[in-house]
């Protein structure tokens, strides 16, 4: 991660009246990248989803400041930004863990016992589905089908699809991410 540069304000030219606070966030290039996306879409309100995608890629999740910033830049009311951000499963309003495990619960995976994989991971690492461990190491999520039905049951570990999973294999795959006392 780049060193925080306390002196440089994030670009606020798009929302000159009241730029968002950046407290607790490194004032790095990420807002510049976000602004570039916003500019590419000519600040059109229609680009809300695209911009939220970019923002989440940049920051990992969407906090209130980011939502406010995006709303002002695209000239969309805050409640609509919030409504859109919470409608879609992909957007997260809370920080995610350092690592992620997504268990596919699609039909093919269901038929092949994906629920047992989910239960095993939950139990082994004390993490609720769609939650994060208290130490912030692991986020567990479920997917509605990742399209890897031919390899069911499947799970995604830090972005890599793994097929023909078993409860034990899933737990083992996560083990190296976790502190040893678990």
């Amino acid at each position, binding site marked *: 991660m780049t060193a925080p540069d306390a002196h440089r304000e994030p670009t606020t030219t798009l929302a000159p009246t009241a730029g968002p606070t950046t407290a607790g966030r490194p004032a790095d290039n990420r807002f510049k990248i976000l602004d570039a996306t916003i500019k590419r879409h000519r600040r059109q309100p229609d680009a809300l989803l695209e911009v939220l995608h970019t923002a989440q890629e940049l920051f990992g999740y969407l906090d209130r400041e980011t939502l406010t910033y995006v709303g002002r830049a695209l000239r969309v009311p805050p409640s609509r930004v919030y409504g859109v951000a919470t409608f879609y499963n992909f957007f997260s309003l809370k920080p995610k863990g350092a690592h992620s495990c997504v268990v596919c619960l699609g039909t093919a995976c269901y038929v092949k016992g994906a629920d047992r994989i989910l239960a095993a991971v939950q139990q082994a690492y004390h993490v609720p589905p769609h939650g994060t461990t208290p130490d912030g190491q692991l986020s567990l999520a479920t997917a509605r*089908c990742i399209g890897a*039905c031919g390899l069911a049951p499947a799970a995604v570990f830090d972005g*890599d699809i793994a097929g023909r999973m078993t409860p034990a294999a899933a737990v083992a795959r996560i083990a190296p991410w976790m502190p040893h006392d678990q």
Partner: protein
Amino acid sequence: MTSDDLDTVRARERAAFAAAPCRLAVCTAAGCLSSGAGAVRDALERTAADGADSPGLRIIGTGCLGLCHAGPLLRVFRAGAPDVTYAHATPDLAAAVVRQLPDGRLPDERQLPAMHPFFAHQHPVVLENAGRIDCERIEDYVAAGGYAALQQAMTEMKPDDVIREVVASGLRGRGGAGYPTGLKWSTVAKARGAGKFVVCNADEGDPGAFMDRSVLEGDPHRVIEGMAIAGFAVGAEQGYIYVRGEYPLAVSRLRVAIRQAERMDLLGQRILDTPFSFRIDVRIGAGAFVCGEETALIASIEGKRGAPRPRPPYPASFGLWGRPTLINNVETYANIPPIIRSGGAAYARLGTERSKGTKVFALAGAIVNTGLIEVPMGTSLRQIIFDIGGGIPDGRSFKAAQTGGPSGGCIPASHLDLPVDYEALAGIGSIMGSGGLIVMDDRSCMVDVARFFMEFCRDESCGKCIPCRAGTVQMHTLLMRMTTGVAAERDLTLLEQLADMVTRTSLCGLGQTAANPVVSTLRHFRDEYMAHILEHRCPAGVCRMPRAPERAS
């Protein structure tokens, strides 16, 4: 680049193809990649680079070869010799193949039989390029006859001619509902107003379906070409592909393909130096099944909550930003180039009376050969599941085939000989859907299957209309009562009444079909429901019933 220039490229590439007597194709669809196809490809390239004595060898990363469970798949094409396909390929095997190629004696281990039934019974049209082209090289697509249909449309046909061929082909929407594609195209073409749009629905949300993903990953130019032809036919200059966020590989390959097509003047301003201009932008979904519904998809492209709106007005007259909009799904567009190339009449010779052409199915669940297949419409379920799919593994018996995902139904063994087409499936209470086909053996409980799908619909309901929002919740509650053994007979009555009400009164297709899994399992497996309710017993042994009253035994 003009049409003639493109012909030159095609000729050059074909010559280069012919000069390479040997091609090694590694399946680089998401399935095989997750089984280690990347390492196999690396090993091929490393070994080929080491040995100087393999001239004319080409290594390509290709689209889905279909047999996902046996991945990574490696296929060897040699001039004058039959193709050889390896299952579960490893880097070591790959290296051995490259080293032994010059002798013409390939390793025997892990070779699939020459006429493996999985491949023998298929009829690829949409998937014709799978295994043959490198999915990241536009030149490969062009050499395989790609963009010839677009050339033909632009140079020899008028928009009306294109639509006439699509009508003649009898092609119906592959997204599930089966609306005649030609009719849709002519409606949008006739719609008044400038600034029309062409939209490709790649929000393949049915769990158990991955046909569209495979097409986008393996042959993205085919979809782009189909869309460009559609744009030409209906008079649109802008297209959008709305891809599921769950398919990052498809998105990146599409973006690469769009850039390549733009560089060769196959997209953008003045395509092939004609007055026709057409742009395509990719829009990425964010995890909402309901966005597969066309008005919700439009709302989502417009940056809004993916809530459907009442139709009419239909998108064909009032769609994206209020403009006439053509919406088809991936597989529908992928069928367009062959229809234009060989003519609608030729295409219509495939399939059944009312369902023309082929259909791609994703086989999954309790079946030996899981993966992707393409068969002519009218192929029987038995052929699909037992001949191509290899039957049920572990010595279990077939119980049901689920088609159409959460909007579909379960087909029992008594209907295995049914020829699969739109009408036949609808006739037994299921739907064609987008092509997901999940096989269930005797270890699946049909009440629990209904509960599984109802949970899906409950969680994916947008919440706009009451019947779907609250009706799916109550139907799920009732199904939970059954699977936990606390239901009474009146719960079944309530469930059936709700299923009817939600079907008839919901605002959009999600709600209107949400009860289908319940209705179809009740129709074909009512005795299982009764066992849960009257005897507090799960015949398949799936449902645990700790709270159940004393068993009637």
